Every structure is written in C-alpha cells, then in structure tokens.
C-alpha cells in the first residue's frame, strides 16, 4: 500500500463529495485515492523516460560546449535571443492556463475547463509560429546545417559553429515535436471535456495531460539559457 500524505486538507479546499457513475473505481484499487495515485505515479515514470531521452542531448551538448567554448559562444550570438525570450514567456503563460484548466476540471466547471484548454492550445501554436519564424530567419542567413541547405558561416571556426547549429536544430526541433504532440493531447482533452467525460470526481486525464505540458515547458526553460544565453 503506497504511503499517502496524511496532512489534513481543509474542507473548503476539497472537491464536492457527490458521487457519479464515472467516478467508479476499477476493481484492482481499494479506493479512488489509490487509483488516482497510481495514475499520477505512472505519468511520472513516463516523464522520467522523457527526461533521460532529452537529457542525452543535453549531456552531449554540455560536453561540446566545454570543448569548444569560444566557437559555441560566437555561434550562439547568431540566434534570435529576443524571439526565444518571448517564446519562453508564451510557454510560461500556457503552463498557467493549463494549471487553471486542471483547476477548473477539479471543480467541475466544464465551460472554464474547455476555455483554458483552448487557451493553452493557442499559446502552444503561438510558440510554434515564433519558432517557425526563427527557423525561417536562420534559413535565410544560411545557418541550417542540413543536407540540401546552404550552410555559410562567417566566423573563425565554421566547423565548430556547424556543430553548434546541429545541436540547436536537433534540440529545439525535438522540443517542437513535443509541443505539437502536447497541443494534440490538450485538444483531445478539450474534445473529451466537450463530451462531458470529466467531472469534479474524475479529471485524471486532464491532470496527466497537464503534467506532460508542464514537462514540455520545463524542457524549454532549460533549452533557452543553454542555447540562447551562452556568454
């Protein structure tokens, strides 16, 4: 039996005790708290795999950042720092709207839940739009080291700068893929909420989708200083 927090939650902070059919507990669980706990823990296990998956790129980037510090610093100056900063703010706002969506789901407020989920999606799409703009500007400046693109870097160490840009596009590209998946998941939550699948007793999928979204935000919180704010 997993240990649970035994602190007393004040009565005004708990959800209403009205029970409904879709608050049913699957037979392998003792009570709804245990069911929710196992979902929550399972989501953290998945996020741990994601942390290590993306962490591999962070580790190798760290190695090369220490190996070629001047070249990486010079190459980083070619990135559009202010666009990256705005994108960070956009994702932080989206985490707020996502947290407020989970809050609305826990209170059983369907309209607010759908509204906040849509707001999260729109902010996620705004992030992707700004990212695409950055990629296009970098393409115009011939900084895309991919086959079929021209890579022309004016500076002392073009090979080392090319390595930096490989890291930049791989890490931000993989992150952007996670944002796209996240927008899809949040959209799915919005559709399910529209179909009355959630209530104050059962909002676990919204919470788990929120955890994925917050994780994507955390990854960007680390990507932004490590790639854009070098030196």
């Amino acid at each position, binding site marked *: 039996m997993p240990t649970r927090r035994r602190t007393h939650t004040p009565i005004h902070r708990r*959800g209403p005790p009205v029970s409904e059919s879709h608050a049913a507990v699957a037979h392998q669980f003792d009570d709804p708290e245990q069911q929710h706990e196992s979902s929550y823990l399972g989501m953290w296990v998945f996020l741990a795999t994601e942390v290590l998956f993306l962490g591999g790129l962070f580790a190798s980037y760290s190695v090369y950042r220490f190996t070629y510090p001047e070249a990486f610093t010079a190459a980083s100056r070619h990135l559009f720092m202010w666009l990256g900063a705005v994108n960070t703010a956009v994702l932080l706002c989206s985490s707020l709207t996502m947290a407020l969506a989970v809050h609305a789901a826990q209170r059983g407020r369907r309209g607010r839940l759908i509204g906040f989920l849509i707001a999260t999606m729109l902010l996620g799409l705004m992030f992707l739009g700004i990212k695409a703009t950055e990629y296009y500007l970098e393409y115009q400046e011939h900084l895309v080291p991919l086959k079929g693109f021209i890579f022309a870097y004016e500076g002392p160490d073009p090979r080392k700068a090319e390595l930096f840009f490989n890291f930049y596009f791989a890490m931000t590209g993989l992150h952007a893929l996670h944002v796209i998946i996240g927008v899809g998941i949040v959209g799915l939550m919005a559709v399910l909420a529209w179909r009355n699948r959630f209530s104050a007793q059962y909002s676990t999928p919204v919470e788990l989708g929120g955890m994925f979204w917050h994780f994507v935000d955390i990854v960007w919180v680390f990507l932004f200083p490590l790639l854009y704010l070098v030196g």
Partner: protein
Amino acid sequence: MAQHIVSRRQHIVPVRTYLVVFAALMVMLVLTVAAAQFDLGVFNVVIALTIAVCKALLIVLYFMHVRYSSRLAWVFAGAGFFWLGIMIGLTLSDYFSRGWFPIPPGPLDHPITPP
C-alpha cells in the same frame, strides 16, 4: 463484477497560488535575460542554470502538484532528474579527469626565454 462507487477528496490548489507562481516565473525570466546582458565570465552559466533550476522546481512543485503529493510521488518525480544528474555529472567528470577539455595555459606553461 462489483465496482464500488465512491467520491474522491482531492486537494485543489487555489488559483491565487498559481498566479503567484506564474508571477515569480516571469520575474525569473526577466532576471535571466537581464543577467545575460552582462559579461560575468563563468558565472553567466551558473546564474542562468540556477535560475532555470528554480523555475523548473516551481513548475514541478506547484503546477504539477508534487508539493501536495505523497512522499512516494516525490520519489517518483525526483528519480528521473536524479538519474539525469548521474548521466551528466559522471559524463562531464569523465571528460574533465582525462584532460580532454581545453585548459587555458598557466604561468608554468610559458617557456623560459634566455635574456
């Protein structure tokens, strides 16, 4: 099969907490960008990463509800980051201990030229 229908008492984080955390996150973003405008040598990375870790902690504790969760959940949440620390820490110490990073030449590196 019998399914017992019971309600769940959950901890609902107040909206005000979310707004305060969000304000703190935005302040830290401004700090990160401001600190990057100055040349502080090696401390640029230290400050940037420290602020990033603080932001991540706030998001994990409050937005992802870890602060209101059981100790078992704390273990699960921390495990991934702990293993990430092992990977980055041991990888970097491996490279450092082999001397494979450029170390700037010190005073003993200059050859002694005869007068």
